[in-house]
């Protein structure tokens, strides 16, 4: 009888419903990012030296109308949360006329970006050496276009009026670099 009962009864071994399983790997690779841009792109600043109408007054540089519309933007991503980068500025090609100095300052961050945006170093003199303009940039993005990032302001000063000479227009390139701290 025991053998007959076993024959008629189909055992239900699979009380659980598990049948099979497969798997695969997902991987996201985020590399360090350091992107820098200006807007408008390929901007050209104009400064015109004008001489006074009255004797004894100082000559001065007049700033072109587009000189106050420049913004700098960046996207920065570091491997470590406490790492930062700086934006430096220096001359590229060309040379300032004798007796003239050019200064630049970056405004505080503003815009639609997020993250650890940089801190302005205030007004700095542009030289042939890289000089920090914005420091302490962590993981951050500024947004693009006017109103996003740091507004740039330029100022030309006469350091030695006696050295000023009448000369043709001078074209000078200014280079910005986003680099490790």
């Amino acid at each position, binding site marked *: 009888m025991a053998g007959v009962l076993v024959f008629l009864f189909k*055992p239900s071994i699979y009380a659980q*419903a598990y049948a099979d399983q497969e798997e695969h790997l997902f*991987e*996201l*690779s*985020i590399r360090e990012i350091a*992107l820098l841009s200006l807007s408008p792109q390929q901007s050209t600043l104009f400064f015109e030296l004008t001489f006074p109408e009255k004797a004894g007054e100082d000559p001065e540089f007049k700033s072109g109308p587009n000189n106050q519309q420049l913004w700098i933007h960046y*996207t920065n991503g570091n*491997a470590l949360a406490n790492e930062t980068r700086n934006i430096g500025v220096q001359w590229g090609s060309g040379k300032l006329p004798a007796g003239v100095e050019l200064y630049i300052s970056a405004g505080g961050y503003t815009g639609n970006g997020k993250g650890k945006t940089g801190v302005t170093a205030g007004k700095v003199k542009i030289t042939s050496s890289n000089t920090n303009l914005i420091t302490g940039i962590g993981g951050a993005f500024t*947004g693009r276009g006017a109103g996003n990032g740091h507004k740039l302001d330029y100022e030309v000063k006469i350091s030695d009026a006696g050295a000023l000479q009448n000369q043709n227009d001078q074209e000078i390139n200014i280079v910005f670099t986003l680099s490790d701290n």
Partner: protein
Amino acid sequence: MNKYFVFGLLYFLFMTFSSDALAQNLRLSGAWKVSHNNFQIEAGDDIPGTIRSDADQISLSVNGNVNKSNWVIRVHMEEYNTWNNNLELWVRRTGNGVGSGSVYGGNTFQRIARMETDFFSGQRVVNNIDVQYELRGATVLIPASNYQATIFYTLYED
């Protein structure tokens, strides 16, 4: 030990172990890796907050002894130690596959959790069911690194 008992025992053993050979099984092909090649950004931009895979990034096939069976596929993931909690993986079924069976459900994106959740169901044999992923939460605000997770698909018979 009489012959009926022996025959019954043999039948019992046959049903026990032969069921493995006739069980439904699951096959998966494909994987997904996201890198800077998946997006283009300019200075000032963040990494895209949503990155979507190809519609047929992976495919799943259910076959075996399914002629009498309903089945369901559940999905879950296990993150590696390097995972960042800002990241989310979402999945949806984009294809109906081919075969004698049918599939239903799973057509809208659902987040893949650490606990198993139902993905989609079906009946009988269906091969090459296309599946698509979405990655949400990638940003330059998290450390540059490699983030990994294993995604599991588990087939259950109803």
